[in-house]
């Protein structure tokens, strides 16, 4: 651990962030202190792993898996390990990973190098979305600064990965690094046992690595000063939709959603609902959301979770049915196209959503329920599961609007410009 003063409160990761500028190495050291690399011996990195264990850090890529456990699983596997820093942000409404790479590359690389040391890896791959040129340039500049200044124990390489909603999934990134398409694979064997080039591979979201970089400096106890019991520390969230100042925020896990909305300047117009956890997440009504704290336990009670920290505020002026129908079709198109139940189920759901939006079919909702249960859990990755969760919660929260549409067809709000992003430019259609 370093003697460098630890930030007493927020911001932690976003400390010293200057708008529009990537944080240079010397400024980074000014804010956070030097990288506390241990002597290059596997035994000594045990102290870091222990600290990560005590800190209770969970992955920030969406699955919230305990980081120390993952690292230990990689170490326990046979062969020389590899580390993948995953910055592939297929979720259209998420910007936190891009922000980290563009503005705080040194923190990310610190974490990657520490992780590499913990698992005794010789190589680190930083997987970025192809087309995220600012992020790529920022990382390359940061790497050059480091080689000039010191020697990192592992070789760090930047790899652009074709952009797609499912391309950022762990096994998809590994598949691409192994020369295959950026599509999820069927695991067994698990990635921590056989990943890139058949080696045990540690895949961490870049935000997780940033947290590792700070825990290595300031310790587990410091990390736990914020956050909840089950999910300690701070986390980055991307708040979008009908708020005055959408953007990326660093919050304490367990912070009330209301305070986050306030930090974003409050609602831009009266709100109808919130989407928690992006397109694989859950809808909650605005009133219910007012009481919610953004921590895993509370959210779990309403069947939601933070996921990769994407939150979207839906205004009352929008038509939920139209929005859901558009996103539903986009999500179906984003299927990797490898598993029958996903290809067919999501397509059926999307078609039925369009039918509901157009109206005149009161039995359409029943059909969605059917397709949803057929698609759920029957794919090689969690994409169909996420879509089902997204759709089911939408039908629940927007029950009236859906029934209305199924009966009477389009409403006036249908003609509004679409709020929820469904990008096609720069996004490879995974199923193509």
């Amino acid at each position, binding site marked *: 651990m370093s003697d460098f003063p630890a930030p007493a409160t927020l911001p932690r990761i976003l400390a010293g962030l200057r708008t529009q500028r990537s944080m240079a190495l010397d400024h980074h050291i000014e804010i956070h202190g030097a990288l506390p690399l241990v002597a290059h011996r596997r035994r000594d990195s045990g102290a870091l792993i222990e600290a990560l264990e005590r800190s209770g850090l969970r992955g920030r890529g969406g699955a919230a898996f305990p980081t120390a456990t993952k690292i230990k699983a990689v170490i326990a596997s046979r062969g020389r390990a590899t580390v993948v820093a995953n910055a592939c942000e297929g979720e259209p409404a998420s910007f936190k990973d891009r922000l980290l790479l563009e503005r705080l590359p040194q923190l990310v690389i610190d974490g990657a190098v520490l992780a590499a040391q913990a698992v005794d890896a010789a190589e680190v791959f930083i997987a970025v979305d192809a087309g995220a040129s600012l992020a790529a340039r920022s990382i390359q500049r940061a790497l050059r600064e480091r080689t000039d200044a010191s020697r990192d124990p592992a070789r760090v390489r930047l790899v652009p990965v074709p952009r797609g909603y499912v391309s950022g999934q762990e096994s998809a990134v590994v598949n691409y690094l192994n020369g295959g398409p950026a599509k999820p694979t*069927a695991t067994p064997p698990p990635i921590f046992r056989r990943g890139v080039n058949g080696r045990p591979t540690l895949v961490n979201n870049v935000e997780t690595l940033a947290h590792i970089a700070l825990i290595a400096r300031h310790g587990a106890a410091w990390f736990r000063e914020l956050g909840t019991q089950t999910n300690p520390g701070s986390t980055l969230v991307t708040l979008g939709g009908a708020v005055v100042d959408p953007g990326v925020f660093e919050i304490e896990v367990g912070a009330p959603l209301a305070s986050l909305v306030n930090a974003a300047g409050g609602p831009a117009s009266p709100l109808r609902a919130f989407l928690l956890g992006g397109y694989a997440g859950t809808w909650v009504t605005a009133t219910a959301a007012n009481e919610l704290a953004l921590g895993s336990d509370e959210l779990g009670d309403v069947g939601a*979770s933070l996921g990769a920290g994407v939150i979207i505020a839906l205004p009352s002026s929008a038509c939920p049915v139209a929005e859901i129908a558009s996103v539903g079709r986009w999500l179906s198109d984003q299927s990797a196209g490898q598993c029958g139940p996903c290809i067919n189920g999501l397509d059926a759901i999307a078609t039925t959503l369009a039918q509901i939006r157009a109206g005149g079919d009161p039995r359409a909702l029943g059909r969605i329920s059917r397709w949803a249960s057929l698609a759920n859990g029957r794919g090689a990755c969690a994409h169909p599961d996420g879509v089902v969760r997204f759709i089911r919660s939408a039908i629940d929260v927007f029950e009236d609007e859906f029934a209305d549409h199924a009966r009477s067809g389009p409403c006036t709000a249908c003609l509004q410009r679409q709020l929820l992003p469904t990008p096609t430019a720069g996004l490879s259609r995974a199923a193509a």
Partner: protein
Amino acid sequence: MTVRLRVNWIACEAHGMCAELLPERITLDDWGYPIIDQRPIPPELEAHARRAVDACPTLALALERVRTRQPSPRFPTQAGRLVDGEPGT
């Protein structure tokens, strides 16, 4: 020790022979893909299950032996749903 069926969804091409050979545990959905009843396979059905596994042309069906009190880590996915097996998604 429980015996369970597992499908490799990428390999599965909806040939449907598994459902013919083990209708007690496998039915087909609207598109011909298997819906697996996840109840463990009792010993009297094991031979049939094995035959169903062998019949799959793409090797998509597998029989898994799972230790019932497995100390493996549980991996939470979104919304707190717990999935046995591999970390992350």
